[in-house]
């Protein structure tokens, strides 16, 4: 039953042809059987899941259930969950049981969703392949020698392998969209400020945003709607009315203007990705959309700007991990300073340390203007580019990743090679715009290819609507990997 759409599952729950406890049990069983080779989960909370499922069944019985009540769900391990380990994929927090719930976690609990566990991720959300986790790499369910993408690779893999129907993620430079594309599912990052960051362990504060994974745009809409909303505990959370993200699902595509940035379609994409992306775009045209060439002239500067701003903010956000109040503390040290240096050296992995060092440097005396301020100026230019492009189109489309999933270990020796994989996604975070990736076909090795759709501020419903229309006419999103069970 958990392979069905959220709508169908909810109907079955209402009709009592299935119970929340049965769904949770099924999900837990699949995790048990499949996760051995995927390593999507850091923590599985069987007791908590069954308790939540029982509570959900009670709500279904008394008629107070909502669209997510009783639905098994996984949270990226970046979200604080009270009483449950919250590791952020790091040794630094390997023993950290959070004393409070993130706002997103509270919202989904209140909606009656049943959390089965916490998913694996690149350490502190820094990465694009899910290989930097202290809990070991997550493997792509389509080919377990390949990466699932990152940093929300665990959540993407969990949904792709049909262990859970929905999962949360976070996206700072592409960390929801990229794993969604590499794992053949749908993933959306909303407008900056629409999902509360309270309890969402910070990587880069001005770029981080919580997002949703599911097997369809329609299901993403349900999950994302439940995650969005103003939270007074987050100063960057926008105070406005939040619409139902599924409001435009039925809207036909006739008249939709899709912008294709010439910079995204220059070299950079592998041939198989290009073929799938081109075919998907052709499908949009067939469904009634018009295609417009647009330009994002400063797009190529998004990567250097991102790799200044994100590490800068991260270097400061991660200073709280010092072994004093929680988290890893070194066993041996000579004095306070030594305790800090050893605890942090032992607790953080190499990529996190590199980004902290880069960030510390670009903020340091004498370099701040040339690096940090410069990057923030480029950020404005990039946002302006999008604004100008959106005068001519409603949605911007392009590839999510330059290639299909690559092999584990293939890019870990050169961080810059890894960073260059972000070329299509980081600009969106710099501008704070909403964007999603949905399955668009397959490439070399039978590996999934994703198409990225970028929208105007607060136009999540339009993005999901377009993707939904595509998914009504195609079946890429229904394909599932064959996962060997233990």
């Amino acid at each position: 039953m958990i392979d069905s759409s959220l709508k169908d599952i909810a109907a079955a729950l209402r009709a009592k042809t299935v119970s929340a406890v049965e769904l949770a049990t099924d999900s837990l069983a699949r995790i048990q059987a499949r996760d051995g080779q995927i390593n999507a989960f850091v923590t599985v909370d069987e007791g908590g899941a069954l308790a939540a499922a029982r509570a959900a069944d009670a709500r279904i019985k008394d008629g107070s259930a909502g669209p997510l009540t009783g639905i098994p769900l996984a949270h990226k391990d970046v979200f604080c969950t009270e009483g449950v380990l919250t590791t952020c994929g790091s040794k630094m927090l390997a023993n950290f049981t959070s004393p409070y719930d993130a706002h997103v976690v509270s919202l989904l609990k209140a909606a009656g969703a049943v959390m089965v566990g916490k998913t694996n991720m690149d350490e502190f959300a820094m990465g694009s392949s899910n290989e930097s986790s202290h809990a070991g790499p997550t493997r792509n369910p389509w080919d377990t020698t390949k990466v699932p993408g990152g940093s929300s690779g665990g959540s993407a893999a969990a949904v792709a392998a049909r262990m859970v129907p929905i999962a949360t993620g976070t996206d700072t430079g592409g960390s929801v969209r990229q794993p969604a594309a590499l794992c053949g599912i749908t993933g959306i990052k909303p407008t900056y400020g629409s999902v509360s960051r309270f309890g969402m362990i910070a990587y880069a504060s001005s770029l981080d945003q919580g997002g949703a994974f599911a097997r369809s745009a329609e299901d993403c809409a349900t999950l994302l709607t439940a995650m969005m909303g103003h939270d007074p505990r987050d100063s960057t959370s926008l105070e406005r009315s939040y619409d139902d993200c599924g409001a435009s699902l039925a809207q036909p595509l006739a008249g939709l203007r899709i912008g294709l940035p010439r910079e995204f379609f220059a070299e950079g994409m592998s041939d198989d990705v290009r073929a799938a992306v081109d075919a998907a775009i052709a499908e949009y045209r067939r469904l009634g959309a018009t295609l417009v060439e647009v330009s994002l002239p400063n797009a190529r500067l998004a990567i250097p700007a991102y790799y200044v701003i994100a590490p800068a903010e991260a270097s400061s956000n991660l200073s709280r991990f010092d072994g004093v109040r929680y988290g890893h503390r070194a066993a041996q040290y000579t004095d306070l300073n030594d305790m800090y240096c050893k605890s942090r050296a032992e607790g953080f992995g190499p990529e996190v340390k590199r980004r902290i060092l880069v960030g510390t440097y670009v903020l340091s005396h004498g370099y701040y203007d040339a690096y940090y301020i410069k990057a923030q100026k480029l950020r404005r230019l990039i946002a302006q580019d999008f604004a100008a492009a959106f005068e001519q189109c409603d949605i911007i489309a392009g590839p999510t990743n330059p290639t299909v999933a690559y092999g584990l270990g293939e890019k870990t020796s050169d961080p810059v090679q890894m960073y260059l994989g972000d070329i299509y996604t980081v600009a969106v975070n710099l501008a704070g715009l909403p964007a999603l990736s949905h399955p668009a076909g397959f490439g070399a090795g039978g590996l999934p290819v994703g198409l990225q759709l970028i929208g105007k501020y607060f136009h999540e419903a339009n993005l999901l609507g377009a993707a939904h229309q595509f998914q009504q006419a195609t079946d890429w999103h229904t394909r599932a990997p064959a996962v060997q069970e233990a």
Partner: protein
Amino acid sequence: MSLSLDEVRHIAKLARLELAPGELEATQAKLNGIFSLIEEMQAVDTDGVEPMSHPQELAQRLRPDAVTETDRRAAFQAVAPQTEAGLYLVPKVIE
């Protein structure tokens, strides 16, 4: 832009990250690779452009001045490495 070993040592110190003796050169090499990437920013003239820190031009929301938090010391200190008499313990600080 490339960093000297001394500069790498200096920022590691600022960031309170101990680098093992073998790590220093390898870190320097990787950082310099990243800085080459970052140097590409200089290709564009940004004179007169306002830095952008947030996508929306909004003002900070103000919270009413009221006590809303209760004592959760026990829960918070349950995850602490070392406490005594309600205090967090750290190696002695010498001024």
